[in-house]
């Protein structure tokens, strides 16, 4: 059986830590980092990458277009 799995890549330097990507992720993948980037923002990162399906929800709502989404079919 093939399953779709995904990953996001956040441009952490450009991320403004607004957090709007967080509630739209159906699988609770994203969280804000404790650390700041150089602009002083807590950037987003995948706390739970395995759960990502590459559904793109997060990227669709990201106001700064700093999320890249990757998706791949993997055999289970």
């Amino acid at each position: 059986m093939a399953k779709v799995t995904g990953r996001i890549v956040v441009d952490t330097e450009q991320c403004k830590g607004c957090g709007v990507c967080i509630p739209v992720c159906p699988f609770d993948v994203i969280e804000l980092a404790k650390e700041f980037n150089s602009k002083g923002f807590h950037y987003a990162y995948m706390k739970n990458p395995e759960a990502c399906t590459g559904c793109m929800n997060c990227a669709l709502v990201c106001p700064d277009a700093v999320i890249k989404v990757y998706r791949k079919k993997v055999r289970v």
Partner: protein
Amino acid sequence: MDEQQAKTEDIIKKENLVFDKTKLLTDKAFHYCPGCGHGVVHRLLMEVIEELDIQEKTIGIAPVGCSVLAYHYMDIDMQEAAHGRAPALATGIKRTLPEKYVFTYQGDGDLAAIGTAETIHSCNRGENITIIFINNGIYGMTGGQMAPTTLENMKSSTTPYGRNVKQMGNPLKITELVAQLPGTCFVTRQAVHKPAYVRKTKKAIKKAFKYQKQEMGLSFIEIVSNCNSGWKMTPNDANKWLENNMLPFYPLGDLKTPEKK
């Protein structure tokens, strides 16, 4: 290298890339506040122009409002209008360059307060242009003053005790007004704070450009958005507030389509 990292590396490959920032957005980082809806709409607009392959034929008009610097981000020819006058610029451009795609990008102060006459008359004349109208219920740029679209009892820096409708008038549904005018062909209200809304908004923008090509009249796309700074909320709270307060008053959906006028 642990297993998970290896797996991630296996997925993050060019061939698996399904979502990336469109090339028509420049590298310049948006100056918008974290969580502001302007950025999403900028992206959608540029995606549509890229997909329709009309960069060479498009001229955009930036407003005076938070998106005043839109031309820093959109990699197309643009003009900066005076506050409220974007539809007049668009008219001047489209009338002398009828083959081009012309759009305005305007806030609610710009379009529904100072620019009311230009909005009504460009719609009434049925200029073959597209108006993108960001309704965030406030004057974002100048520090959160009341806009024509500010809701009843909503606080702003000029209504610190809430908008008193008796004194300051009613929130203005300008989109409902322009839908009445025969010059508009497509009038719709959308949002961008949820993925499903984002998808619909993009479709609406694409439609608008297609109607423009077919010279069907003016397309008017209102996008109900947040101004978390002006509203003094976190971005996610702002979006929730938007859903619960703005949308009941400004319901989403098509008000007019060429199919059923």
